[in-house]
């Protein structure tokens, strides 16, 4: 190798990494719920990095066993890459497992927040893009996308493609493939698109295939929204 070419370079980058906030020290329950979450989108979670946050537990003076927790996270196919809000002892244990220690979030959750967060296990790192994923190129047949917040697609979604979001889905072009919003059970999620020719649409598990779509209220090549009323998917023009 020529000596004048650099061997390495340090750069700083910022990534969006899911954070696992723990509200219970019941290792068995944690393992179960993690597995359920992973099973919903195995491709998405497989080998995903994960930071676990034990701040809430430590506020209640319930210090969870770090090696056991790390084991459970690994078993579900996720890769623990950091600890947050740990005690000195916990941080030491984590470091012994080569897991870096991150400083705890400055703004601690209020108890009301905690209440609201209790349902969710994995919180995306709060950042500008955490709540919405923006896709600018066509989603082609055979491609699958998963967004943990809203999903915004500025190009077409081809027949044979599949897009999924825990939140809303916006397609500012023709939607020909499959679109599944609220895949974690959010019944208030909606799908918006500017030309509906989808093979399948679904909100919180309630789905319709193209054959069953009631397009009587809908003019083709016009923007529509799809939302849930009870267990029925409603397709309506956006005026």
């Amino acid at each position, binding site marked *: 190798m020529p000596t004048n070419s650099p061997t390495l370079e340090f750069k700083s980058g910022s990534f969006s990494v899911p954070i696992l906030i723990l509200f219970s020290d019941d290792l068995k329950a944690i393992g179960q719920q993690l597995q359920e979450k992973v099973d919903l989108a195995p491709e998405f979670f497989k080998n995903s990095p994960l930071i676990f946050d034990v701040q809430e537990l430590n506020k209640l003076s319930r210090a969870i066993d770090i090696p056991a927790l790390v084991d459970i996270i690994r078993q579900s196919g996720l890769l623990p890459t950091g600890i947050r809000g740990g005690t000195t002892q916990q941080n030491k244990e984590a470091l012994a497992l080569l897991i870096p220690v991150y400083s705890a979030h400055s703004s601690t959750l209020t108890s009301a927040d905690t209440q609201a967060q209790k349902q969710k296990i994995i919180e995306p790192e709060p950042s500008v893009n955490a709540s919405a994923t923006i896709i600018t190129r*066509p989603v082609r*047949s055979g*491609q699958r996308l998963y967004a943990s917040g809203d999903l915004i697609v500025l190009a077409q979604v081809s027949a044979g493609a599949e897009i999924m979001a825990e939140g809303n889905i916006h397609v500012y072009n023709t939607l020909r493939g499959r679109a599944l919003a609220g895949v974690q059970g959010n019944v208030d999620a909606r799908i918006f698109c500017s030309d509906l020719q989808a093979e399948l649409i679904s909100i919180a598990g309630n789905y319709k295939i193209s054959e069953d779509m009631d397009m009587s209220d809908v003019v083709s090549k016009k923007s529509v929204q799809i939302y849930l009323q009870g267990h029925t998917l409603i397709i309506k023009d956006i005026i």
Partner: protein
Amino acid sequence: MTRIIVVTSGKGGVGKTTTSAAIAMGFAKKGHKTAVIDFDVGLRNLDLIMGCERRVVYDIVNVIYGEATLNQALIKDKHCENLYILPASQTRDKDALSQEGVGQILEELAAKDFKYIVCDSPAGIEKGAHLAMYFADDAFVVTNPEVASVRDSDRMLGILASKSRRAEQNLEPIKEYLLLTRYSAERVKIGEMLSVADVQDILSLHLLGVIPESKSVLTASNSGIPVILDEKSDAGQAYADIVARYLGEDKPHRFIEEKKGIFGKFFGSK
């Protein structure tokens, strides 16, 4: 800088090899040093279309396994001195190709100052097709105006966008161009084929050109002369237009409308 162009489709029999031979010859005739590589190991036929099948001694697999040098395997075209052909092996199977081996061949060609390297992809989305597109800078997506072919092209576009070197290394994505081949304006008119507009609507891709269904293609391949050298033929002219457009010339699209009779010429609407 070398540009690597993959001619791909997903579906077989749509005109990839015909196109690879034509555009490679087109680039070479414009004065660019060009290589065209057959990735269809086991079913090689680029050498037939190029009329050099009786001069094949070594092939791409021999080069990858170190049984021959690249110089030994490259066949100099007899019509144009800027053009070289690297044939596929007839006797090995697709697994004989490796990503490392293909990468090395492309690097060596770049070092030899080849301007354009045209990779003729086999059908399907298996190893041969994957290796043909993996290192590409540009993709010529060859599509016939029928639903199955359009769907396969779309699938291939997805693979280009996610499984190529450029995608894996987060580089600028492969530039994608649509080539609509075996197009028959008459059959579009009676609804037997998708129109240019239909295909573009489904694929939303930059149209590089339309090649009409033409007897001249068969005549050319039977005589082992790329159809672009038949300057009188419609298909030959269509390929010449495509080469010119790719190189930045402004050429209006042709062969999309039905040929008009004498009355159509005078009175027909545009």
